[in-house]
């Protein structure tokens, strides 16, 4: 017995839109069953995990804070993935952006440097991520070295560099030699959008990135060039698009956005340099990019959903005393359901008995 996929002749946009909702329902049924087996109430789990965060302004703000780096990085990655280039080193580009931007924050610390500091830090952040992202691109275009390996290995090197700086030269001299920098001056702190909340301007940058990308992908020659390079590399070459230039361009964009996310996170959320500044945003963003079908608005929604599962996971630990591992497993199931549903919009599954031939 085996499964057979039959392409649906015309995919309705309604189906495409409600597919994720159905996937959510299935995932919650599976999780609810497990929770019921554990002797807990699935209904209260659902409340705590999903509804509670969405019904509370504080949690909604935290949702934005958490989704900001994910959306920014994933938007950048969508350029690479559209062109079939595998940048899995966004985590490293995030860190390098944070490092270069923070350098300025630390260099101007305690001086009367004016309001130019924050914009300059952001520019340096973009630059840091961009340059670091261009390393695998350059190695690929110049020497044919596969970008999956180089971009991944560079992640670890970036993390160790940050670790070295936080424990060594950038340590707060008054901090008993503990591994963290001074707290950034107000001039080097990315301000909050909403007074008194933790939602910083990074959220706005993410929104701008979404809108600009939507325009670029659908309305510009560059967007066309990307899709063609990804879908039909030979046709792209015939059309006169230089694949090397495309490679360099998409890595620069995705590195730059990851770097922006990095400096925004450090200057807007953390407020100082620490040995580790990311719980794996660069890797989670890969999931976000695909969960959002590489579509900018989809990515925005996906980033919010992932952020919700993180916050919901914490609530579940606090209010229901469910172990973190359970919420991780649930997250995995949920993602698999959504991705499956996404595919099943385009295909119908038929069970074929033994002996039948396609």
């Amino acid at each position, binding site marked *: 017995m*085996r*499964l057979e*996929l*039959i*392409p649906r002749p015309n995919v309705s946009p309604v189906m495409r839109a409600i597919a994720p909702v159905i996937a959510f329902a299935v995932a919650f049924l599976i999780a609810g069953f497990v929770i019921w087996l554990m002797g807990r109430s699935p209904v209260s789990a659902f409340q705590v995990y999903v509804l509670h965060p969405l019904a509370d302004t504080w949690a909604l703000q935290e949702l934005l804070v958490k989704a900001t780096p994910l959306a920014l990085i994933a938007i950048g990655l969508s350029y690479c*993935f559209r062109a079939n280039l595998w940048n899995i080193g966004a985590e490293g580009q995030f860190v390098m952006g944070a490092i270069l931007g923070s350098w300025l924050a630390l260099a101007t610390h305690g001086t009367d440097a004016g309001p130019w500091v924050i914009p300059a830090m952001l520019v340096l952040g973009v630059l840091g991520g961009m340059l670091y992202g261009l390393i695998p691109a350059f*190695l690929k275009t110049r*020497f*044919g*070295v*596969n970008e*999956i*390996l*180089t971009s*991944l*290995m*560079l992640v*670890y*090197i970036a993390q*160790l*560099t940050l*670790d*070295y700086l936080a*424990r*060594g030269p950038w340590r707060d001299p008054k901090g008993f030699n503990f591994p963290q920098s001074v707290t950034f001056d107000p001039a080097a702190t990315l301000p909050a959008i909403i007074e008194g909340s933790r939602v910083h301007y990074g959220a706005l940058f993410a929104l701008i990135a979404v809108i600009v990308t939507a325009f670029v992908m659908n309305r510009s020659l560059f967007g066309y060039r990307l899709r063609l390079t990804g879908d039909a590399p030979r046709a792209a070459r015939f059309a006169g698009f230089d694949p090397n230039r495309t490679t360099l361009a998409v890595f620069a964009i995705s590195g730059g956005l990851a770097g922006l996310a990095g400096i925004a996170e450090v200057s807007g959320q953390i407020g100082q340099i620490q040995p580790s500044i990311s719980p794996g945003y660069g*890797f989670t963003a*890969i*999931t976000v990019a*695909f*969960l959002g079908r590489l579509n900018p608005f989809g990515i925005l929604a996906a980033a919010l959903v992932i952020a919700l599962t993180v916050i919901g996971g914490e609530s579940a630990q606090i209010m229901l005393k469910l*172990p*973190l*591992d*359970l*919420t*991780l*497993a*649930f*997250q*995995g*199931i949920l*993602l*698999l359901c959504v*991705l*499956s549903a*996404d*595919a*099943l919009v*385009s*295909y119908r*599954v038929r069970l074929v008995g033994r002996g039948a031939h*396609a």
Partner: protein
Amino acid sequence: MTTFEAILLTIVTASTPFLIAALGELVAERSGVLNLGLEGMMAMGAACSFAAAVTFDSSLIGAGAGALAGALMAALFALVVLGFAANQVGSGLALTILGLGLSGLIGAPFVGAKRDPIGHITIPGLSELPVVGRLFFAQDLFVYGSLVLTLAVAFFLHRTRAGLMLRSIGENHTSAHALGLPVLRVRLLAVLFGGACAGLAGAYLSLVYTRFWSPGMIAGRGWIALALVVFAAWRPGWALVGAYIFGAASVLQLHAQAAQFGLPSQVLSAVPYAATILVLLLLSLRHGRAIGAPGSLGSPFVPER
């Protein structure tokens, strides 16, 4: 035993899990399926093998359970990406998250338990040879297994009809299908094999390497194994080279620290990663453009009717 021999022995242990996991992934990728869930499958292998080994007091059953757990995870992955033609990259990452969570739930009751070391198989006579004796002829079963596996995978891919079939499916599934090759069935088997190998690699970590289980013990080794497949340009022999270069660099940087070279430990810790990039760069320079990925890698296959 001299210091030199001792260091070589440590390198063998450090490299073996990378090699086993990379070989499995290599076969899956050669068939055209990119499974980024290695880390999660290894985590499941480590937890399930340890749980089984403690429960049944047998490391052999443990290793079997590890391979089975990896294969089951791979089966779920296959259902989603082969059965439903879902996105492989996203699904692989989801599998990693699922594996990390599930392994934590399965392993939790076994925190604090421990296993005795598994026996080393000494080949009489040969194991007394200087230098190479202990290195090649007095290892544990996993090490021998990983070397045999390298040869077997190489032989299978390049010397058998089935291997040729698998490679042509990975290169171009449309024309393979047109030739009447069972694309999905072959991919399913390749993915299951990859999962079993990842499970075994995880089992090696919890049964041999440290002999206890704890959450997070895979510590990113699945990602390294994934990168090593790329390093190997999808060739088994080079997977062995890559795994041993990485293993050697990880062990030698610790020796460099103990020998008091005075470099920051972060610099030395970065050596394995930098070395891998450098070696790949040198290889690319020598051979021109490296062999590319299998043509259909990562793209879903739906037969036309």
